[in-house]
C-alpha cells in the first residue's frame, strides 16, 4: 500500500539573506490510505506551510512532494491544478463556500470545473451531501445554514468524486464542541473508508481523533505518537 501523500525531505525557505525564514526544514511525512494524521504545533511551527505544500499550492525550496505516486514538480501548472481538483480535497476553518451558490452547487463546482456535465456533477454532489448527512439542505445558500452545516458542505465538496487525500486546516476552529465532534466524526469516517487525511489543529482534543499525531516545532518534526501499527513501521522504504 503506497502513501497517498509523501513529502520527501521537504524544506521551504521564505525570503533571502538576513530576512530568511525556514518554515520547514527537511521534513519527511507520509499519509496512507485509511489513515488520519494530525499535525500539531504552535503558530510559526510550519504546520500551515506543510499543508500548503501537500496541496500543491506552493512548491518546496528543496525536497519533493508526491501525491498518489506523482512528483508534483514534474507537473506543469495545469497538471497541478488538475491534480488538486481530482485527488485533493480541502477543508478550511472558515468553510470558504461561495455565497452565491447553493450547497449542491458549491459541492458540484470542482467536478464541473473538471469538465463533468452539470447533471452528473449534481448527482455526485447529492451523493456527497448524503454522505455528510445534509442532502435535505442541498438547495440552501450558505447564509441559510449554521456553521456546522456549512462545514458539512465544505467536507462534501472536499470528498466529491472520490478524492483520496483530504487536507483540513483547523476544520473545527469556528465550531462549538459538539458540532466540531460531528465534523471530526465525518473526517474520521471518510478516512476509515479509505481516504488519507491530514488535519492541522492546535487542539489536542481534536488531534486525538487521528491515528497518528505529528508535532512540529520550528519547521522540524520533533515527535510523533501512534506510529506503532505494523504497516506504518514498514513504511520506511516506500514512496
Amino acid at each position, binding site marked *: 500500500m503506497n502513501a497517498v501523500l509523501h513529502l520527501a525531505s521537504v524544506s521551504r525557505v521564505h525570503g533571502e539573506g538576513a530576512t530568511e525564514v525556514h518554515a520547514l526544514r527537511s521534513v519527511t511525512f507520509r499519509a496512507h490510505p485509511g489513515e488520519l494524521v494530525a499535525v500539531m504545533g504552535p503558530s510559526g511551527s510550519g504546520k500551515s506551510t506543510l499543508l500548503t505544500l501537500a496541496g500543491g499550492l506552493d512548491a518546496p525550496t528543496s525536497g519533493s512532494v508526491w501525491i498518489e505516486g506523482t512528483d508534483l514538480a514534474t507537473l506543469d501548472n495545469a497538471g497541478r491544478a488538475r491534480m488538486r481538483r481530482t485527488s485533493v480535497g480541502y477543508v478550511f476553518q472558515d468553510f470558504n463556500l461561495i455565497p452565491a451558490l447553493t450547497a449542491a452547487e458549491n459541492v458540484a463546482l470542482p467536478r464541473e470545473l473538471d469538465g463533468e456535465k452539470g447533471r452528473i456533477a449534481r448527482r455526485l454532489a447529492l451523493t456527497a451531501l448524503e454522505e455528510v448527512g445534509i442532502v435535505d439542505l442541498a438547495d440552501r445558500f450558505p447564509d441559510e445554514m449554521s456553521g456546522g452545516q456549512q462545514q458539512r458542505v465544505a467536507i462534501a465538496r472536499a470528498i466529491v468524486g472520490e478524492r483520496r487525500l483530504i487536507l483540513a486546516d483547523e476544520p473545527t476552529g469556528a465550531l462549538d464542541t459538539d458540532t466540531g465532534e460531528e465534523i471530526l*466524526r465525518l473526517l*474520521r469516517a471518510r478516512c476509515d473508508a479509505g481516504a488519507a487525511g491530514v488535519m492541522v489543529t492546535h487542539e489536542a*482534543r481534536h488531534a486525538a481523533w487521528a491515528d497518528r*499525531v505529528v508535532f512540529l516545532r520550528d519547521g522540524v518534526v*520533533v*515527535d510523533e505518537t*501512534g506510529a506503532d501499527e505494523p504497516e506504518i513501521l514498514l513504511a520506511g522504504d516506500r514512496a
Partner: protein
Amino acid sequence: MSIRQAMLAILEQGPMYGYQLRAEFEQRTGETWPLNIGQVYTTLTRLERDGLVEVVGHGGADDQADQGERHVSYRATEAGRSEVSEWFATPVPRSQPPRDELAIKLAIAVTIPGVDVATIIQRQRSATMASLQDYTRLKRTGRAATPEEPADLAWSLVLDALVFDAEAEVRWLDHCEARLRRAALDRPPVRRDAPAAAPSEEIVR
C-alpha cells in the same frame, strides 16, 4: 474520596449486596476507578456503623451471582438519604488540589541544573497525547459512542472528563515549553553567582 457517597447514592435506588453495588458503580464509570470487593464491604460496614445503611436480609438479589455466599443486602437509611442530598448539594472543594506528580516533577526539574526540561515536556506530551487518543477511541466506539441507557451516558461523560483533563495537561505542557523558551531567550549572560533559576516572570517584564 467520594466512593462512600457514591455507593450510598446508588443504594438509594434499592437494596443491593456488595457485588451488585460494585457492578452498578463500574457500569457508570467504566472501571476507570476499579473498586475491589474488599473495599466495597469495608465501606458498607462503616456505613452501617454510622447508621447510613442497614442490612435487609435478602433484598434486591434476583440474580445468584455470588452463590449465596455473602448474600447480605444493604439499603440506605433516612440518615443515609440526607447524606446523599447533602453530597449533591455541596460543590466538590478545590481548596486541596489533588497531588499532581507532573507539576511537581517539572517544578523540581526547572530548578535543577543539567536537567533537560524540554525533553521531559516533549516525552510527557507524547505520552499524554497517546492516552488522549485512547480515550477518544473509546468515545467513538463501544457503548459510549451511542449511549442508550443512563449508565452509558454516565460512562461517556466520565470519558469526556478524562479527555478534558488530558487536553488541559497538553495545553499546560505547551505553555510551559513556550515560557521556558522565552525565559531562556531573555536570560542575561550567565552569572555564576546567580541562583540556578531566576523567576521567569521578572525576566519577561
